[in-house]
Structure formats: C-alpha cells, structure tokens
C-alpha cells in the first residue's frame, strides 16, 4: 500500500511539474468533464423517456366499464381533447373537462375543479404564450397544472372547464368534438385505459429514445473520447522517457500504471467531481437547457439519480484513468531500437488533396445531375464521405504551400517566428491534416445532420414558405360544438374590421365533397376579389389572385368546383349554426378577411372564440396546422445544433490542445534562441501559425464546405442550415483557436523566461 501511495505521489508530482504549462491537466480535466456529462446525458435521456412514459400512463383516461350508461354513471368526467397552438410554434393539447356528476375524478396535476369558464395551464405554456395572453385565452385562469400532471416540465397543456359544462350528448352532433366519459386515470383506476384519449402531444412528437441517444453518443461522447485519446498522449515525449526509465529501474507494469494514474488522477477527479456537481444540480432543480429552451425534469432524473450523478462521472473517471494507463504502457513502435527513426514525408497527402475539390463539386452539383429518386441520395452520401476524407488533406496541402510562401517572405523580411512556422507547416503537412481532420469532419457531419433533419419535415417547410408569403389578412375559424346563429352573429359583430364568408362542403357521397359552397355578402366577396352574383354561380375554382385560394387548398376542400352564393349576415350565421348542429351532413368553416389587407390577430380571435362559443374555435391562418407540425421538427433540430456545437467545440479544443502541446515542446527548443535574441515576439508569431492558423482554416473552410455540400439536400430556401448556425459553428472554432493561441503564447513566453542553460 505504501509503495502504491508513493508511486501515486510520484505521478502527482510529475503531473504538477511537467512541461507544457498544464495543457495535459486541462485536456484530461475537460475530457473527463465532457465524458461524464455525456454519459450522464445518456442516462438522462433514458430517465426522461421512462419518466414521461410513466406520467403519461398515470394520466391516461380510463373509460367507464359500461360506456353506454356513461352519463348515468356516478363519478364521471366529460373529457374532450382538442389541439391549439401558439403562433409558429408546436401544437399542444387543450382538454375540455367537466364533472358529470358525483365525485368526478380530477385529471392528475389539478388540485381542484376549475369553476365553469376557468382554465388551468401548464407553467411553460403560460411562459411561452405570455405574448399572446394565453392566460386569458380559454377563460379565467384558475391556476397551473402541477408537475405530476405533466409528462415533463416543458409540456404545454391546458385543462379548460367550459362555461356551460360539457356533456357527451351536447357535443354529439359534432363528429369532431365528441366528449368522452372518463371514470378515472391511470392503471390504478377501474376500467379500461384508452390511450387514444390521452392528453399531450409528446407521445406523438417525440423521436425514439435511441435516436436521441445516438445524437448524444455521436456529438458529445465521441468527441470526448477523441479529446481523451489526444489528452492521454499530450506531452508524451517526457512521459515515454519516464516510463522507460522506471521500467529500466525495475518498475513493473502495475508500478508504471500507478505513476500514470497518480499523474492523471487529479485532473480526472476534478473533471468527474464537477460533472457530478453539474448533474447533481440538475437533480435538485429543473434545469433549462440553453438554445433548446427545454426544461429538464429533476424528478425524472432523480429516478436514475445515482446512475447519472455518481456512476456516470465515476465511469468517466475510470475510463480516463484506464486510457492514460493503456496509453503509457502500450508498446511504442520503434521503442526497441536505440535510434529514432526518420519520418518520411507522405506522398499520398497531395494526391488525396486533389480529390477534395472533385468530391465537393460532386456533392454540390452531382445530386442534380443524376436521375431521382435513389441516385441523388447515393451521390450525395458518397461525395460527402469523400469530402470528409479528403478535406483535411486539402487543407494540409494548402497550409504546406502557404508555409513555403511564408518561409520565403520571412527570409526576405527577416521574420523569425514566421520563418519557424512556415518551415514547420511545409515540412509536416501530416500533422496539420491530423489537426484539422476532427474539426472539419465534425462540421460536415453536423451540417448533414441538420440538413437531413430539415427534409424530414419538408411538407411543413413548404407550408411555412407558403405561410410566409400568405395573406395574413385571412383567417379560418372552425367553430367547435353546436352553436346558435346568435352566437355566430355575436362573434362576427366583435370582429368589425373583417368581412366574413362561410365555406361549406356537404357530407354524403364523394361527389358532394368536391363541391364547396361559399356564402357571403357583396362586401366580403369583393374583399376576396370574387364576383358578387345575384344568383348562385358555379365557378371552376378559386381565382389564383383571390386571398382565399390558399385557404381553399389548405382546408382540404379539394380542388373541385366552387359555388358562390350571395348571403347576408343573418343567412350566413343561420347556415353556420345549422352546419354546426349536424356535421355528418355538412362541414363548414368561417373565413374572415380584412379588406384593407392588414393582418388579423389569430390569438385575439382565439380568445374571442372562447368568449363567445362554448368550446371556442379552431382559428388559424390557412395551412397553419402544417406549420405547427413543422415547428416540432424545427425544435428537435435545435438539439442537434446544440450538441453539434458542443461537439465541435470539444473537437476544436482537442485539435488546438494537441497543436499547443506540440508547439510548446518545440518551444523548448526555441527557448535558447530567445535568450540569444532577447525577443519573445517569436513565440506569439509562431504560436499563431502553429495553433490559431490551422484551427481558423479548419473552422472557416470546414464550415463553408460543410454548408455548401449540405445545400443540395435542403434545396428549398427554408433550410434549417441558417446563417446563425453557420456563424456559430465557425465562430466556436475561431474562439477556441484564439483562446488556445493566447494560452500557448503565454506559456511559451513563460517557459522561455524560465529557461536556463543546463546539462540536458
């Protein structure tokens, strides 16, 4: 034990006093930290999915054992789940509930029954919808839904108790709004759980857990492992010498392992402790994840608290120690020789470099030149892989050529730092290639991931494009439940700035469904740029120039014929009321249009609809439903961007640290020169070329190439690859480069100042 402690202490002392200004300490610390958080994130993803499932099951409505007798059943709740959304945001559930009689079961998360006309909202919905005054959209606010009633803290959900109550009978005429009879919630309640009635969109929107896990694995854990491998070999020159010496003194493998552990231990322990503390903080409080605006549930995580906060950091700690031990003990090639082997300049690097522009050209233009559907994808993938493999070689070759130019310039002008850097870049292109490979590869993979994420929601993308150019002066209003003509009239009276028309489609045979009838007075028809015929007129479809053309297309009335029938407000409201009473016979949608073309406020209309109609109305700009579904994809894409940016930062750090360690090792050789010349500027210049230049090149060229070859995948202009993403990806790499450059210069200068001539 004593020996073990002593050897650990030897390692610790070696770690403290070793060269390269604590680069290895920082690298190992960061590797453990990111690895610990990465592993904990894997646990957290599992914990959140499991926790959400549990909560969803617990709030799944249970159907009355005898549903036919539902209404007469004691202790029952009427339950109607509908959908709403905030402007350009993901859809969420609005559940209309009402106690039917007796001790009606309250949905989980509600402490008491809201009064008629009151609503209870989830905290995050209130926060996100504050701009639309969501608190008052469905009635008076009676409180917030407790955590146990939400599948996770981020969930948007509303429970609304309609002013006039809710009964299955009352809504019976309305096929789109039939209230169910619920006798309990979750597995503990007697009866049959009906998963279709379950509130919330999470179950429908969430990607599979394994997809999320792969994002964490690929963009967080993998970069951490790469950083670890580089960190383990940082300053290897000194350590290899020590390992050999200890072996020569009779140190066994275990002894050498203990020294290696002693050296890496403090850095790894610090990283593990801080990652444990970070995870611990997430166990205590719900944690808002930056960029995604996601609130990580502390209570979901707590179910796996030990695994996330203790085992994951501990595993990271052990993995780091195992890696440094293996890296130290692994036999080195050429270690048995007594003379160092010369390194031959690689001949394949320039050859690979030539293939790079070809790969890029193929990736950008190739998919458009071959016949769909399979070949463009194959071409895109093959050329992307080609670019990932050849871009580092191209960057290295460019740097080597630049190195030659630098050398010439430095010789001509007498710039020592530039001369050293120029010579180095031109003689070691392989080192530059290794340096930039991780960063440029990661940039390409990230952009590809974001681009593919984008095309999965291409329908939504089209919808959003449409909604951007769409006439915001038009809104569709789908009244829910059965309403009276006076209610419809009351509603319209409170939107005096807009003209109204009613679109109806008759139920029945398929032929009927192809004919849409439009009711409206002349003012409204004129505002819609439609003719105002005295008698019912049949036209082939909406004139393209009409504001309602998009609505006509998007409200899925089909592309059939249109009948225009002039109708005054009274006739129109009567028609709307009768359609609401029997939806099997006829479906109807009100369309509001502002003659002055100014936008209608959808949130205000939604609120008004709840004031006037018992269950409100589905209000939206035409096609908005598809846009909100697309918002889910967009929100999920933020996770890829977040993890991708972190991953790129870690890889840039990895590349930079390894460049810095190599630079500092060479800096020792430079130290005597500074004594001779008295100048320290040489370190700043050569550090800039050794550390900053390759990273800056990898960041800028890598991002440009990555964005360019991802562009054909998202040929529509609503690509998820935004300017912000491009700037932040390149910016992160540049920032890391500048930071490491400053650090490397400082350490090199300090190293040079401390240098004294000595025997070795």
């Amino acid at each position: 034990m004593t020996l073990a402690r002593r050897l650990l202490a030897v390692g610790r002392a070696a770690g403290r006093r070793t060269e390269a200004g604590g680069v290895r300490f920082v690298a190992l610390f960061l590797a453990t930290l990111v690895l610990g958080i990465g592993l904990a994130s894997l646990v957290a993803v599992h914990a959140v999915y499991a926790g959400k499932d549990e909560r969803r099951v617990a709030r799944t409505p249970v159907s009355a054992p005898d549903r036919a007798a539902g209404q007469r059943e004691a202790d029952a709740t009427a339950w109607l789940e509908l959908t709403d959304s905030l402007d350009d945001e993901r859809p969420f559930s609005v559940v209309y509930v009402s106690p039917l009689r007796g001790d009606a079961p309250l949905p989980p998360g509600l402490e008491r029954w809201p009064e008629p006309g009151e609503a209870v909202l989830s905290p995050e919905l209130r926060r996100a919808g504050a701009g639309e005054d969501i608190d008052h959209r469905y009635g008076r606010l009676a409180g917030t839904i407790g955590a146990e009633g939400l599948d996770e803290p981020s969930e948007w959900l509303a429970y609304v108790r309609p002013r006039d109550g809710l009964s299955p009978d009352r809504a019976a005429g309305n096929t789109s709004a039939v209230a169910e009879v619920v006798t309990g919630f979750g597995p503990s309640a007697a009866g049959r759980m009906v998963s279709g009635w379950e509130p919330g969109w999470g179950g429908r929107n969430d990607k599979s857990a394994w997809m999320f896990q792969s994002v964490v694995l690929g963009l967080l854990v993998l970069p951490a492992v790469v950083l670890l491998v580089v960190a383990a070999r940082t300053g290897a020159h000194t350590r290899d010498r020590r390992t050999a010496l200890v072996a020569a003194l009779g140190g066994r493998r275990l002894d050498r392992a203990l020294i290696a552990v002693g050296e890496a231990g403090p850095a790894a322990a610090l990283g593990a402790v801080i990652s444990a503390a970070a995870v611990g903080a997430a166990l205590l409080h719900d944690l808002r994840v930056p960029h995604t605006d996601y609130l990580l549930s502390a209570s979901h995580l707590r179910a796996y608290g030990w695994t996330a906060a203790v085992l994951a950091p501990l595993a990271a700690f052990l993995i780091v120690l195992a890696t440094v031990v293996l890296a130290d003990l692994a036999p080195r090639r050429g270690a048995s020789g007594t003379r160092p082997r010369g390194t031959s300049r690689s001949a394949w690097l320039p050859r690979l470099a030539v293939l790079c522009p070809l790969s890029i050209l193929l990736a950008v233009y190739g998919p458009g030149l071959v016949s769909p559907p399979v070949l463009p994808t194959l071409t895109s993938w093959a050329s992307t892989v080609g670019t990932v493999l050849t871009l580092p070689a191209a960057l290295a070759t460019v740097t080597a050529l630049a190195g030659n130019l630098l050398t010439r310039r430095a010789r001509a002008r007498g710039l020592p730092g530039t001369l050293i850097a120029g010579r180095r870049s031109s003689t070691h292109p392989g080192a530059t290639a290794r340096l930039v490979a991780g960063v440029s590869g990661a940039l390409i993979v990230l952009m590809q991931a974001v681009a593919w994420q984008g095309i999965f929601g291409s329908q939504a993308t089209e919808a959003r494009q449409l909604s951007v150019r769409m006439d915001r002066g038009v809104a569709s209003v789908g009244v829910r439940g059965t309403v009276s003509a006076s209610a419809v009239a009351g509603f319209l009276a409170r939107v005096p700035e807009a003209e109204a028309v009613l679109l109806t489609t008759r139920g029945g045979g398929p032929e009927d469904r192809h004919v849409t009838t439009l009711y409206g007075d002349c003012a409204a028809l004129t505002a819609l740029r439609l003719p105002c015929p005295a008698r019912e007129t049949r036209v082939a479809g909406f004139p393209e120039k009409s504001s309602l053309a998009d609505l006509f297309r998007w409200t899925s009335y089909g592309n059939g014929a249109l009948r225009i029938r002039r109708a005054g407000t009274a006739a129109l409201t009567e028609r709307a009321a009768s359609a609401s009473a029997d939806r099997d016979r006829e479906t109807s949608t009100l369309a509001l249009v502002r003659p002055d073309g100014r936008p209608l406020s959808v949130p205000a209309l939604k609120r008004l609809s709840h004031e006037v109609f018992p269950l409100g109305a589905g209000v939206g700009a035409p096609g908005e439903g598809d846009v909100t579904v697309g918002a889910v994809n967009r929100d999920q894409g933020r996770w890829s961007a977040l993890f991708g940016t972190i991953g790129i930062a870690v890889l840039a750090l990895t590349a930079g640290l390894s460049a810095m360690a190599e630079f500092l090792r060479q800096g020792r050789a430079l130290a005597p020169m500074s004594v001779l010349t008295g100048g320290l500027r040489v370190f700043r210049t050569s550090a800039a070329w050794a550390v900053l230049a390759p990273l800056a090149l990898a960041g800028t060229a890598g991002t440009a190439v990555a964005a360019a070859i991802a562009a054909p995948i998202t040929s529509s202009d609503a690509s998820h690859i935004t300017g912000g993403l491009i700037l932040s990806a390149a910016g992160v790499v540049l920032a890391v480069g500048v930071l490491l450059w400053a650090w490397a210069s400082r350490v090199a200068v300090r190293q040079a100042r401390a240098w004294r001539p000595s025997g070795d």
Partner: protein
Amino acid sequence: MATAHGTESLRPVLEIEGLTHSLGARELFTDLSLTLRAGESVAVTGSSGSGKSTLLSCVLGLIKPAAGSVKVTGTDIVGLRSGRLAELRARSVGMVFQFGELLPELSPLDNVVLAALLARTDRHRARERAQALLGELGVPDAATSEELSGGERQRTAVARALINEPALLLADEPTGALDTETRDRTAELLFDLPRRHPCGLLVVTHDPGIAERADRALRLEAGALTPVSSGASA
C-alpha cells in the same frame, strides 16, 4: 581481485553467451560472450555506433537479441516474462545513465527512494538508506533534481543504482557529460564500488581514460569483444 567479500566475489553476476543481434542490415553482435563476476569491473569501449549502448539494453532486457543467452545472477533474462524481468531488474541490477536520467520532477532523495520502493524495500529503510547514500556521495538537498549540477545529478544516479544493493551495476557513458575534475571523481567513485559493495560493474564508455581504471577493458569491434589491456580474456 580484491577479496573483501570472500567467495562472494567469485560468483558470476553476468554471463553472456553466443549473443547475436542486428539492427536493420547492420549486424551488431556476432556470437558475443562475456562473463562478469562480483567484485569485478569491466569497461567496454568502442567507436560510435559499435553497439555499446545496445549491449547494455540487452543486459537490461530492454532489447531481445536474435540469439544467445544473457544470464543475470544465474537467471536467463532472454524471454523472461515482463513481471519477472522487472523484479529481477529491481532486485539485482543498478544502472547509471549518461545524463543521470533522473525524474526531473522529483527531489534527488525521492529519485533514489523510488528505486528502492520499486524493489519492494520497506519505506523507512529505503529513506534512511537513500539519505545515507546521498550524504556519502555529497549530493545536496534540492526540491527537484533539475536544480542539481551535472556532477550532482550523476552522483544521485549512482546512489539510485546502489540503493538496492544490486549484484550487477551497469553504467552507460557515466562521465560523458561531465567536466574533467567531476569526471575523475565520479569515475573513482564508480570503480571503487565493486570493492566496497558485493557487485560486478559493467561500464560502457568511449573514454580510454575511464576504461583503463577497470579491472578489465574490452573493445567492441565487428560484433565481438576483444581485450585492450593485459587483463583476463572475455
């Protein structure tokens, strides 16, 4: 030879037989043999690249020769498992390198103690003995061995080589980096060791002045050892 240790001194501590090894196309040793007894010192000289350091690496077991046997205190180290080899090195072999090769981060005392601990010596005994050896060799206290002069480092390396009372002491150009005066003192110290400790000393040097202080001086040439003085044959 001096018989301060009685019959101990006759025991062979190193027996090399039929050693053959090449580096690339260059044949370094051809059927090389050498016997070294306790209490005896042998110097091996040779031109640069003749294989002197490689010979020491073979004796340490760092390099596995193509053929032949290298017995250290009777145990053939060629093909010995790494654990047993490490144990044998720690217990029976001491080594002084050209530049001392101390761990720069450790104090001179810790450098010496470490070698004893690797041989599983009791901590207190190791410390006492290390202090005594460093005192005897005149090495001053220092926080790190980087603060020492070249001669002090080399003496620390000698102390480290002696701490485990090895049967075989190896030295690779032990005075190569030293000035004349320090060189002479270090050489005196080294060659006096087999007389004071029961060990055999094998020194590799290109310095004839150092080599002639040994009981036997051999020259490594064309892969074989030949005597350069009137000493006993290899």
